[in-house]
């Protein structure tokens, strides 16, 4: 446990998940502390995205518990799960912007449905402010199809911030982006923590993203965490051959 993080807000214990014969998670334990950026590393198909989808109830685990802010997600009613979801922002791998809506409508959509009695002025201020903070104020009236991959990722992140979440979950934030845009997204992830006081789980297989954004790394290999700790602890002094091979593989790539 890192000395500067004391308040545990997510506690995952013994989580297993299978899809038919494919045992993706084989008893996973993980903690997330307040204001911490935790990076979950692993190869494609190792179950990283499954883990965060279990956290927000998009999937159900076969075994184990996930406690978020002291609430066991499996025991929550849909109404209570939705209340919990409002405290969690989920930035999808492919951004998941609504194709039929403009950027403004995409941003307003979760806001007007979850926060009652907002005036038009308040909505505009919020949306425009967030677009400013991700550096894309001019895209407000554009359709998602008119945006680049990097712009979509930024707006996807801005859309999740509209509900002021306490936890951010980033699913492969730099996947499919050029190196310059990757740097921008990594900086944005750090900026979000500073400006919005969020705790984050960043799912990635990109070691540069992990090193820049993460306070701690958790390496998921064959359905279990093989190493958890700081970047140096996990990789520089890695003794586990599986973790070493993951590190070597990334740098050779």
């Amino acid at each position, binding site marked *: 446990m890192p000395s500067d993080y004391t308040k545990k807000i997510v506690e995952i214990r013994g989580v297993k998940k299978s899809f038919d014969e494919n045992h993706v998670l084989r008893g996973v334990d993980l903690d997330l502390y307040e204001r911490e950026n935790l990076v979950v590393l692993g190869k494609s198909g190792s179950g990283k995205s499954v883990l965060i989808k279990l956290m927000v109830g*998009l999937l159900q685990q076969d075994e184990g518990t996930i406690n978020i802010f002291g609430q066991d997600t499996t025991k929550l009613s849909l109404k209570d799960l*939705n209340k919990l979801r409002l405290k969690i922002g989920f930035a999808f791998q492919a951004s*998941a912007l609504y194709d039929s809506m403009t950027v403004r409508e995409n941003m307003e959509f979760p806001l007007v449905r979850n926060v009652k009695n907002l005036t038009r002025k308040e909505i505009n201020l919020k949306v425009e402010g967030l677009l400013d903070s991700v550096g894309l104020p001019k895209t407000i009236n554009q359709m998602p199809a008119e945006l680049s991959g990097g712009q979509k990722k930024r707006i996807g992140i801005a859309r999740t911030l509209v509900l002021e979440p306490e936890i951010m979950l980033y699913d492969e934030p730099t996947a499919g982006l050029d190196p310059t845009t990757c740097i921008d997204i990594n900086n944005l992830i750090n900026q979000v923590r500073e400006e919005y006081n969020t705790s984050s789980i960043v799912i990635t297989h990109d070691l540069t993203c992990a090193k820049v954004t993460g306070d701690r790394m958790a390496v998921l290999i064959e359905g279990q965490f093989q190493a958890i700790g700081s970047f140096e602890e996990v990789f520089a002094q890695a003794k586990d051959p599986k973790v070493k091979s993951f590190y070597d593989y990334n740098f050779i790539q």
Partner: protein
Amino acid sequence: MSENIERNKPVISKKLDKFFTGLADAFRFVKRFFQEVWFPPYEFKEVLRQCYEIGYRSLPLISLTGFIVGIVFTNQSRPSLSEFGATSWLPALISIAIIRAMGPLVTALIAAGKVGSSIGAEIGSMKVTEQIDAMEVSAINPFKYLVVTRTIATTLMIPILVLYTDFVALIGSFINVNQNELVSLSTFFVQVFEAISFLDVFSSLIKSLVFGFTIGIVGCYKGYNSSNGTEGVGKAANASVVMSMFLIFIEELLALQIVNAIRYA
């Protein structure tokens, strides 16, 4: 391992198991619609948007098809009637055929192709690009926003489109009759209204409501359950059309039996 083998063992056969599981899923989907449609939020704005997309944007295709159906059907019926010197019955014959069967059926089949496939593809693509998941994690009920609104819109708009198709087909028929039998507009429509009864119009509208509901719910179901990326989207759109058309014919057959039972009771 043995537990896995036991778990994946088919109850009857793999294909039949899949069929019955699919059927149960479809019933659960329809049941969910009827559970959710009555409760807020009502999403009026989205229903109106869908009504515009489904109704107004289908008008050009429906107009053309209805008009051609009216002309062709009149032309094809004439030789049989002229053998008995009964071409003066053409307006009555055409109106009964159009109002009772052809109007609703032609409209529903065209809407199944145009609207059903577009709903299937739209929701399917939202599913595979995680847009539906994005709604769910924002505490928005995607079923309510996507499925309920589109199904309400098709259920409301298909009867209106059917009335419009009936009218356009009758105009097409009138032009043909007017050219050949020199019947005036007023005489044509007097004969049309004398031939049809309240039951004809009422049953046609009720049937259209069912057709509309079928097109909407099937398109949404296929889209909502699509998988396997873009290939799945194409399959969802295709399956929406095929399944809707199949169900429309079955419903037409059932409606015919019910209306005949009422008519001749």
